[in-house]
């Protein structure tokens, strides 16, 4: 019984890979709980569409994040999966069964909200036992299951406390335990960390990941914080104006954004205009300002720009290298350093080049000797310049 792991103190790697975790799922352990959101719309009679044609699926044990600014439809999508809002069109399936018409209490999702929404008049144990009570699990079995789950989140000794007597982190663990105890098909987390300060946030992010690995549950997570999304997710769906504009692994979405919005939303980037002058493998050859020419990666789904077409490329500041005098790169640019800020882990250079400013994030050793006014050679590889699709059909 007493195998409770002190979660907070555990290093992230001590858990083993998620795949060989034992899943406490009884006889249905090997069934793939598969959540599928299929061409879902949410429209109001006023003609406003808050969710447009959203489709994604969540595999067993996967951590998928809906990432977007407020008003992008991410929370509405989650609420439709949870059953608090009805989709105007489309299907929501669990293991092939459409649940879109079921009320929330007849779906099988554990939902965790911002602030955790623990029942203030119940003890921690009663909170965790609540869903089992609603499913008419008998007193003794209920207690045992709730205690087991509290044990798993390391809170067994707090069973008799009231929620308000716990710290924010402990409350989160109670909320997770309560959402997990009835073996839901997936956990739905609606900005659970939205109101917290940065330090606590980071600690709780790690905790959520650890609990997920231990229990092996699938998670659908909603946030507007791109760092949080990248740190926690197996896949990220970036949402804008009710649509998923890009869905992929965090590094994929970050390094190879498909639209200017995705490029900008996930972090700082340099957007360079140019003209397509040819194609080469999966790349377009682009002529930027000042006659500088270099290859840039084409997006997988996007249209191929023809020769002569205007294109827009995104290059992350940390992907632009400071080149030694004789070093080569796929694309090389010369510029003058206009500003230099030391930021500890890296140094941020603002370089006047290509008739504009480029932001470069460089490690200190190469950047150390660079002063304001110095002439530098910058370079990047074909993989790091990404051609963007501008506004869907605009690329032609």
């Amino acid at each position, binding site marked *: 019984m007493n195998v409770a792991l002190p979660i907070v103190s555990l290093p992230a790697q001590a858990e083993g890979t998620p795949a060989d975790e034992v899943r406490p799922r009884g006889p249905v352990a090997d069934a793939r709980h598969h959540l599928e959101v299929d061409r879902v719309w949410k429209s109001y009679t006023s003609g406003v569409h808050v969710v447009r044609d959203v489709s994604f699926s969540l595999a067993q044990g996967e951590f998928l994040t809906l990432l977007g600014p407020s008003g992008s439809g991410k929370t509405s999508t989650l609420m439709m999966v949870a059953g608090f809002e009805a989709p105007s069109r489309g299907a929501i399936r669990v293991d092939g069964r459409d649940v879109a018409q079921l009320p*929330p209490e007849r*779906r099988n999702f554990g*939902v965790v909200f911002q602030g955790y*929404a623990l*029942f203030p008049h119940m003890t921690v144990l009663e909170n965790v036992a609540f869903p089992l009570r609603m499913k008419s699990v008998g007193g003794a079995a209920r207690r045992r299951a709730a205690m087991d789950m509290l044990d798993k989140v390391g809170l067994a000794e707090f069973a008799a406390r009231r929620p308000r007597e716990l710290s924010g982190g402990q409350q989160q663990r109670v909320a997770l335990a309560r959402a997990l105890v009835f073996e839901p098909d997936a956990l739905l987390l609606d900005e659970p960390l939205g109101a917290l300060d940065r330090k606590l946030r980071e600690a709780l992010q790690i905790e959520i990941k650890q609990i997920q690995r231990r229990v092996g549950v699938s998670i659908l997570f909603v946030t507007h914080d791109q760092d949080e999304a990248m740190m926690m997710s197996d896949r990220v769906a970036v949402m804008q104006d009710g649509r998923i504009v890009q869905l992929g692994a965090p590094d994929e979405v970050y390094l190879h954004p498909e639209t200017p919005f995705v490029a900008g939303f996930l972090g700082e980037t340099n957007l360079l205009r140019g003209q397509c002058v040819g194609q080469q493998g999966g790349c377009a050859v682009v002529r930027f300002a000042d006659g500088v020419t270099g290859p840039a990666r084409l997006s997988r789904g996007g249209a191929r720009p023809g020769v002569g077409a205007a294109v827009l490329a995104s290059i992350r500041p940390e992907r632009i290298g400071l080149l030694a005098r004789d070093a080569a790169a796929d694309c090389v640019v010369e510029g003058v350093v206009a500003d230099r800020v030391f930021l500890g882990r890296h140094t941020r250079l603002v370089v006047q080049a290509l008739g504009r400013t480029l932001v470069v994030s460089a490690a200190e050793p190469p950047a150390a000797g660079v002063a304001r006014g110095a002439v530098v050679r910058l370079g990047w590889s074909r993989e790091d310049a990404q051609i963007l699709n501008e506004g869907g059909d605009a690329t032609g």
Partner: protein
Amino acid sequence: MARRDAVGRLALYGACAPVLAFLLLPSLVIVPMALTKGQMIQFPPIWISVHSFTDYLGDPQWFDSTVLSFQVAALAVAIGCVTGSAAAVALHGRRFPGKGLVTGAIMAPIVVPLVVFALGGYLVFARLHMVGGWVAIGLLHGMLVTPYVFISVQTSLQAALNPLLVRSARSLGAGRLSVLRHVVWPAIRPGVLAGGVLGFAVSFDEVVVALFLQGPQTVTLPVRMFTAIQFELTPKVAASASLFLALSVLVLLAQGVAMRRRGAA
């Protein structure tokens, strides 16, 4: 500075004391008058006897009126708590056209002048041949209690019922009834209690409705006091008034204790 503070404070107390005395004396003067030896209600009283209390409780008419008042108040509170809480829960967090109108209708009994309300009630119950029965008074008092419970339940809903609690409960498998029982009820319980206690006080000393709807067998305690003070000036009036006073002090104390306990928890 400290000296100016002290002077200012003294001036403040000096100004407040007469106001407090003015507010409290009319209530407190009742008690010595009930303790008179004489057969008339008079001031100053002739010290000191409790005969007016024993007379009051020994007189079957006065005793019946007291029981009747409790009966009426109990019915009124029962009705008011059910309707007031139901209305508050139903309207909580909902938006629809005409919500203001519905709220207005619920509040009407304490906004409409009491004589108008009582006269209307009289006409309706006369038609139904219910004038002179305690149930009619209880029903009308129930309407008077409803807004009080409504307001206090509304307040506790706003304070204690996070809409996310309801959503959480639903996602954890609770149907609408279970949500009412396990989430809404614990949140509104203090409001229902407070509204009920206040409503009891409202019904217990209500005169206008009780006067309009009185019958030979249904004279509530305040109505009996009202008529007694006009015709016989008996100190029983002061004795029963002291009972009222004791009741309301008890209620105030109970509320104070409850508040402190909630504050500490």
